[in-house]
């Protein structure tokens, strides 16, 4: 549990006039990066890194984690307004957020999204504060066999969210896993599937893939419409509706609690990250939906479940980062660079040597969440006006922003081509009812799983009994079989 002396020393470290200023500026930057398709909080952190070089380590990290927090929430804002998740974790927010926008309920959706983000993030960090040691012990149990079956379980659960056909969901999920392995194999050093393009040797960058699959197809859909909205809405009552969204979040307290727990747990698993958390949170809420609820067509609870899990995973990812030095997400991977820049190495020794520093950082992150609500509401209020711009102006405008964003990932022209090609592929996926989400999950997990399979083969050869001998992997297998049986049972009963 918590060490109160170190915690109080940590509070003293952050109790300066600079802290609110750093949080506010970092959060605004994060929100702006989060809402621009093609840019993520990871890019924001990377860009700000040199700027923080002259700051004190704690000040620098408070500012950079604020960018990270702002980016996670900002990604949800564009997910709702233009169906383009500004951050990977906001994928599940598009499922119900964008349909709400199409119904003219974008302000309520933004209110729900921001409040859920604040509650999710806050619960994640409070949990981190109290249970960091226990969580770290649990995450340490995960070896190759556990990671393999966790991925299979995730894919099976995602399969249960299928759109038109389960076969297409699995097919495209498997293809996503295969695409995730493109590039240089970390295990063998062999360059695979690049078709001679040097730009693919490090694989397809996540930012390019996610923006390409979500934002570009949306532009292709938008150009045949007049406005983003299918219905006419009035420009007034924005604040009132935004606040209505804030209030109605609390109606879904069960989803808030469930998704917060899912987010925290998944966030602690290396590489699983906010995307998987948000999708699992959403999937779980959907599976327990009441008959009148229509998930995928503008159900408010869908936003609450996805955003709470998305932001709650932040606490879990930070736990793994601070205690083990392992990134749980792209943003925390760049935060490792920030630690290094200031002469700190995240890991067990950081706790032993600088416990007050760690507690100070966690406390500052909790403080950030209080700011987040106000700053994000302010930003969202102005960004909600995006939908009144005709699509014939939005589409070309966003495309040149995305082109610049794509180039800035690796400073390569190839990434602009890659963005547009993936975008066209994404349009076909959407058109033919191959769920993009299934592909993305496979793609995100593919590279790590490839490494885990290699590790497993090196350690155990072709002995598959190891899966059943390790308790966590055995539990994961049991859950996977249970979920598959449930799906088959539902299919036979004609409920699917």
């Amino acid at each position: 549990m918590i060490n109160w002396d170190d915690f109080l020393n940590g509070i003293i470290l952050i109790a300066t006039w600079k802290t609110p200023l750093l949080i506010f500026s970092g959060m605004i930057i994060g929100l702006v990066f989060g809402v621009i398709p093609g840019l993520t909080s990871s890019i924001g952190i990377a860009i700000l890194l040199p700027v923080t070089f002259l700051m004190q380590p704690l000040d620098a990290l408070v500012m950079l984690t604020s960018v990270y927090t702002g980016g996670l929430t900002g990604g949800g804002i564009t997910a709702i307004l233009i169906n383009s998740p500004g951050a990977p974790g906001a994928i599940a927010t598009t499922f119900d957020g964008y349909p709400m926008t199409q119904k003219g309920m974008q302000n309520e959706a933004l209110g729900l999204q921001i409040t859920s983000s604040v509650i999710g993030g806050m619960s994640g960090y409070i949990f981190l504060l109290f249970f960091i040691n226990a969580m770290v012990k649990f995450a340490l149990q995960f070896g190759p066999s556990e990671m393999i079956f966790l991925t299979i379980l995730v894919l099976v659960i995602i399969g249960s969210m299928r759109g038109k056909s389960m076969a297409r969901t699995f097919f495209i999920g498997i293809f996503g896993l295969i695409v995730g392995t493109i590039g240089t194999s970390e295990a063998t050093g062999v360059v695979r599937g690049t078709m001679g393009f040097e730009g693919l040797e490090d694989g397809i960058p996540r930012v390019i893939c996610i923006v390409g699959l979500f934002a570009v197809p949306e532009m292709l859909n938008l150009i045949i419409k007049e406005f983003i909205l299918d219905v006419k809405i009035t420009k007034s009552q924005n604040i009132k509706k935004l606040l209505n969204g804030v209030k109605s979040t609390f109606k879904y307290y069960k989803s808030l609690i469930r998704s917060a727990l899912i987010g925290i747990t998944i966030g602690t698993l290396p590489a699983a990250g906010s995307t998987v958390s948000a999708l699992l949170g959403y999937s779980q809420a959907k599976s327990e939906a009441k008959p009148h609820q229509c998930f995928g067509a503008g159900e408010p609870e869908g936003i609450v479940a996805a955003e709470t899990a998305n932001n709650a995973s932040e606490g879990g990812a930070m736990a793994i980062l601070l205690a083990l030095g392992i990134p749980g997400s792209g943003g925390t991977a760049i935060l490792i660079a920030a630690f290094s820049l200031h002469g700190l190495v995240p890991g067990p020794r950081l706790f032993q040597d600088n416990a007050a520093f760690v507690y100070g950082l966690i406390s500052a992150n909790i403080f950030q969440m209080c700011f987040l609500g106000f700053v994000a509401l302010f930003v969202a209020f102005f960004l909600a006006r995006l939908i009144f711009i005709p699509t014939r102006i939005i589409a070309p405008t966003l495309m040149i922003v995305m082109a610049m964003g794509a180039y800035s990932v690796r400073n390569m022209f190839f990434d602009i081509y890659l963005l547009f090609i993936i975008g066209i592929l994404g349009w076909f996926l959407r058109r033919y009812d191959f769920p993009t989400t299934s592909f993305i999950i496979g793609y995100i997990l593919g590279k790590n799983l490839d490494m885990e399979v290699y590790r497993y083969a090196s350690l155990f050869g072709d002995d598959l009994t190891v899966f059943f001998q390790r308790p966590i992997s055995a539990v994961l297998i049991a859950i996977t079989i249970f979920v598959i049986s449930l799906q088959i049972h539902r299919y036979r009963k004609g409920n699917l």
Partner: protein
Amino acid sequence: MYESSINGDMMHFSFKNKLFRIEYQPIIFATFILAWTIYYYYSTINIPDGGAQSVLFIKPLTILLIICYPFVVVRSIQVEILSSKIDNNISKDKIDIDRGFLDYRRIVFSLSLIFYAIAITYLGYLIPSFVFVIFVCFYLGVRNFWVLLLLPTLLPTLLSIVFHFFIGVPIPIWPWSH
């Protein structure tokens, strides 16, 4: 009796009092994916040093994809007993047809994206962005002079200043910046 038609993404044909509806485009798409995956597997396994070890994960996935493929195909075919009601549905489909990627606006937009990407490589960011925005806006129906002048001029300029000079992204701005 045999009758066939292609309507959007759906191909219909009737045979022996049964109506077959086939979503043929997803099948073609899935076939391309499968073909590329098999190419990917064989191109990797044939790499002399370490190729065989590098397909440990790809091999089972390729097999799974091959197993899933027939299900994708079968689930894309619907068979119904032919009746006048179904005939009515077919004619309704014809009215609500979405031309998908054959919609000329999508074709022009996609081609302009490709030309834009190629142009940036040779002409820098500013000029292609100006031309791209003005062309797409005009093509999609913007006729306001000030929008057509200010948007393509100010936005790429602003983005160039912010990214190139403030953030330090080394994207060439002009043709001679390469």
